[in-house]
């Protein structure tokens, strides 16, 4: 038994590291990020993209990897009787949940940084093989940051947007972790969060402006300007979703049978 926060965090980190599915998810996410950014850079839709823009475009796809990571970090315990072993070792449920969230946040932050870096590298490679030296910046919602020579690397404004994209990736996985704590099943949690973030927006688009308040769309405003909410509003809406999901998960996890 342990009631130490550091021990719990260390234990959860070991668990996550020794979960083959988690390691595979991280590797696939980082590699897929590079591939998506390269594809977006090589074949842009209406105008050529800067390296930073192609990287931000790939976030839409690679967020699925963070959702899987968040779900796995909790729901894999319920595939067998691991959850009870864990609770015997760490009886403090709130402590355990905090430990799990902490282990996920550390792992996901490292993965997000790797992902964004890999995306940039993929887009940069695609751009330099094509020989296109696009000049411009990314619109971060606070006015375009222009003038960065892209093949030379992203400029300061771009870096801020890229950092916010990494933050978004970590947070959307945290939402998935909370949902997994509620549903306790890998497939059900995956289907729920992926549908909420990726499928429902496609239905709602053009029908109602409520689509802007879905976690994925609101969170996207953190790193990419778009219709609907401002970056601050988007961040607040995503924070509200997270608060709701984490509160429900905490109540459920502390009150329910294991």
């Amino acid at each position, binding site marked *: 038994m342990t009631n130490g926060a550091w021990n719990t965090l260390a234990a959860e980190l070991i668990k996550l590291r020794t979960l083959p*599915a988690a390691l595979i998810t991280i590797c696939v996410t980082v590699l897929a990020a590079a591939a*998506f950014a390269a*594809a*977006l850079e*090589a*074949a*842009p*839709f209406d105008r050529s993209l800067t390296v930073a823009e192609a990287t931000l475009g790939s976030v*839409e*796809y690679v967020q*699925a990897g963070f959702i*899987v990571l968040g779900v796995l970090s909790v729901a894999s315990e319920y*595939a*067998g*009787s691991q959850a009870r072993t864990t609770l015997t070792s760490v009886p403090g449920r709130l402590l355990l949940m905090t430990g799990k969230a902490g282990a996920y946040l550390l792992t996901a932050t490292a993965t997000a940084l790797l992902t964004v870096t890999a995306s940039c590298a993929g887009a940069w490679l695609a751009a330099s093989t094509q020989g296109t030296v696009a000049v411009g910046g990314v619109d971060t919602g606070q006015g375009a940051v222009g003038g960065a020579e892209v093949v030379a690397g992203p400029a300061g404004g771009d870096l801020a947007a890229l950092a916010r994209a990494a933050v978004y990736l970590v947070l959307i996985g945290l939402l998935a972790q909370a949902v997994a704590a509620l549903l306790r099943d*890998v*497939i*059900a949690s*995956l*289907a729920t969060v*992926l*549908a909420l973030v*990726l*499928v*429902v*927006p*496609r*239905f*709602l*688009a*053009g*029908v*109602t402006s409520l689509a802007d308040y879905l976690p994925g769309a609101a969170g996207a405003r953190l790193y990419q300007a778009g219709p609907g909410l401002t970056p601050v509003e988007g961040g607040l809406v995503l924070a509200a979703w997270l608060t709701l999901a984490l509160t429900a998960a905490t109540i459920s996890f502390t009150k329910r049978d294991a």
Partner: protein
Amino acid sequence: MSLPNTVAAEFRKIVTLPAAIVGVVLGTAMTLVFTAMAGSSRRAKLDAGMADDGSTYDLGLEMAAPGVVGVIVTAIVIISSEYTATSKDAGGGRQILVSLTGTPRRGELLAAKAVVVALVSGVAGAVTIGGGLLMTQVLLGRHGHPIGELMGVLGWRPVGAVAYWVLTALIAFAVAVMARSGIVPMVAFVVNTTFVSVTFLLTRVTSLAKYLPDVAGAQMFATGYPAESMVTPLTGAVVMTAWTVALLGVAAGLFVRRDA
């Protein structure tokens, strides 16, 4: 056991699988609700003086592509649930061992599952597409079109949309048989239903991508697909069917030879 009995057994299984029911019901209900919302918002726009560019015929088909997610979930869980171990307290067994004891001929078991997937997704698709088409025309009010005219304009495309649902479900099923788990197919197929799907992104990189199953299959019902020089609807149907047959063949080959 004979094939009809095995199909009946698999049908009983899918009816008692909560995730499968949730997938079909939510997929159909959500598609219909959002199609209805699209219909009434279009009516408001038309009433406000927007010109009818002929897309009111298509309104019932617009949600057909994202709506397929529901039957994808059902097609995946019908096989992934067989490989999920029950809790240690309940013996830690897997359904697949019992299924293969009951139906030792593996080809027959897989065929029965494929028949159930095709039937369930076909009925769900027909209800969703048919219901969506009727509902939008009613909701459009005076901007709606009579059924005869609608069918004349749309031709085979509603049938193509239902075929797209059935073939997509069978492909998801085949991939889940290969993966023996639900996670990989679930992520792959759901990510591919986003606005800018992965396969659509590939059409920008290589023209060969127009022969990918969902890109080719979408031509069976889509108008104004946002990429150029796509295949014809009939070619699309042939290409997607060929993919389905090939993937089911590979899945059957693996399923027959591999350890359970």
